[in-house]
């Protein structure tokens, strides 16, 4: 009977390929440190060809969108002028505060060397299936992008870098339903910041889920949610969205908040990768500590 099983070559091939699939998938899924060089070569070349294709397409799509919006522009213009007045007042106030801030910082000898910088990139392709939400951008490790850096548009946070090769990177969007580490975030309330974790996305309501908020905090619709500077990978104070609905948490001792994302996740064109030198130094420092501990243990 055993030999007859081997005699049926087709069934045998199917069995072997299923086993191989499970083994390879188990090895390659989830978080990986780096990408192997054949993968990197394929990714780089495909991204290069993709960028040739996507540039004219984005041009045409942007043109069409602008053309459709002409009618609404007049009303928008009036609104913007009103806003501009308010903005000018605000700007005067900000200037004043900035000056004050500078002087105060000087007084306590705090030097702000580690400023954020932004690497602008263009999306070249998006994964055709929506089982996982992933975008490919045309900047990579040679432009200074590292794994786990946050990615934003001018509207707000959209995701993080999951893999980089020389000239391209993969971005995992916030809307990804798969397993991703949570993002440390703050809700800005009147009585200070309330800490919580952004974990997951509700596809039906189109809201991000923010969990593990203390039950005592008074949260209201419309409050801003930003990333927390306490995270060891993300830069602080990047806008994520606004509070939309507050419910009780799964365990009854915390609160769960539906966050309306500030950024749109469809039709991404230009995006910015946030490079925070402090976090890079922190990572290096931790790696050094780890290696020292490893040596000490031996």
């Amino acid at each position, binding site marked *: 009977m055993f030999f007859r099983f081997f005699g049926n070559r087709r069934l045998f091939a199917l069995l072997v390929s299923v086993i191989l699939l499970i083994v390879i998938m*188990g090895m390659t899924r989830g978080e990986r440190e780096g990408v192997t060089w054949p993968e990197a070569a394929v*990714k780089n070349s495909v991204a290069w060809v993709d960028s040739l294709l996507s540039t004219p397409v984005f041009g045409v799509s942007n043109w069409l969108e602008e053309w459709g919006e002409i009618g609404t522009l007049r009303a928008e213009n009036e609104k913007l002028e009103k806003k501009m007045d308010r903005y000018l007042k605000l700007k005067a106030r900000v200037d004043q505060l900035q000056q004050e801030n500078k002087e105060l910082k000087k007084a306590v000898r705090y030097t702000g060397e580690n400023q954020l910088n932004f690497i602008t990139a263009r999306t*070249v392709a998006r994964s*055709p*299936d929506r089982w996982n939400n*992933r975008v490919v951008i045309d900047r990579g490790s040679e432009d200074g992008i590292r794994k786990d850096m946050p990615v934003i548009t001018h509207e707000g946070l959209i995701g993080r870098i999951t893999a980089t090769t020389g000239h391209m990177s993969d971005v995992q969007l916030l809307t990804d339903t*798969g397993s991703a580490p949570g993002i440390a975030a703050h809700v800005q309330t009147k009585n200070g910041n309330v800490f919580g974790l952004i974990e997951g996305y509700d596809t039906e309501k189109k809201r991000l889920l923010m969990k593990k908020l203390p039950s005592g905090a008074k949260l209201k619709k419309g409050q801003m949610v930003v990333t927390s500077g306490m995270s060891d990978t993300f830069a602080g104070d990047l806008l994520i969205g606004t509070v939309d609905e507050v419910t009780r948490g799964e365990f009854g001792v915390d609160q769960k908040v539906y966050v309306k994302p500030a950024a749109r996740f469809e039709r991404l064109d230009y995006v910015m990768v946030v490079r925070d030198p402090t976090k890079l130094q922190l990572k290096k420092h931790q790696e050094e500590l780890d290696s020292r501990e490893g040596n000490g243990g031996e």
Partner: protein
Amino acid sequence: MAAWILVGFLSFLFLLEGTVLQLLAPQTWGSDIVWIPQLAVSGVIIVSLLRDRRLGLIYGFCFGLLHDVVFGDAIGVYAFTTAAVGYFGGLFSRQFVSGPIVALLVTGLNQGVHLTMSYAWFRLFGVTRIGWEDALGLHIVPSILLNTLVAFPVYLGVQWIFKRFHPHSVQMFHSKIRK
């Protein structure tokens, strides 16, 4: 020669999936309905249907692997499913008279198998957490319909390549059917 033209054509379809069609798909314009464009998979099914299921298997494996490396969270799912569907498509050429309508029906059926299978693998490994009702209603069924529609130009393209660069094999195929 024909093989290279075919590979070029299928690669072009693969590139379209990630770029141009991403701007035409309904989900880009805020719809709940999702179209997963899988032109290269349609191409592989049609190649297998018109020629040989072994060829479909090999092409399916290569293009599936390419998809896995470029877009995937984990390597292997698309390589397996596309190869399986490529082989499966070839089995139909023995059963039916080959024409555009049969080709489109076979493509639709195989697209359904492909989408369901890849979703099941992703769900099993925790890559996605979309429930099966949503996956079926919003992702799989609309994708099958749209992919079947778009498969018609793909069918014409593949057939043209075979006629132009491999006239002998296509004639043999037809004469075999008409006996």
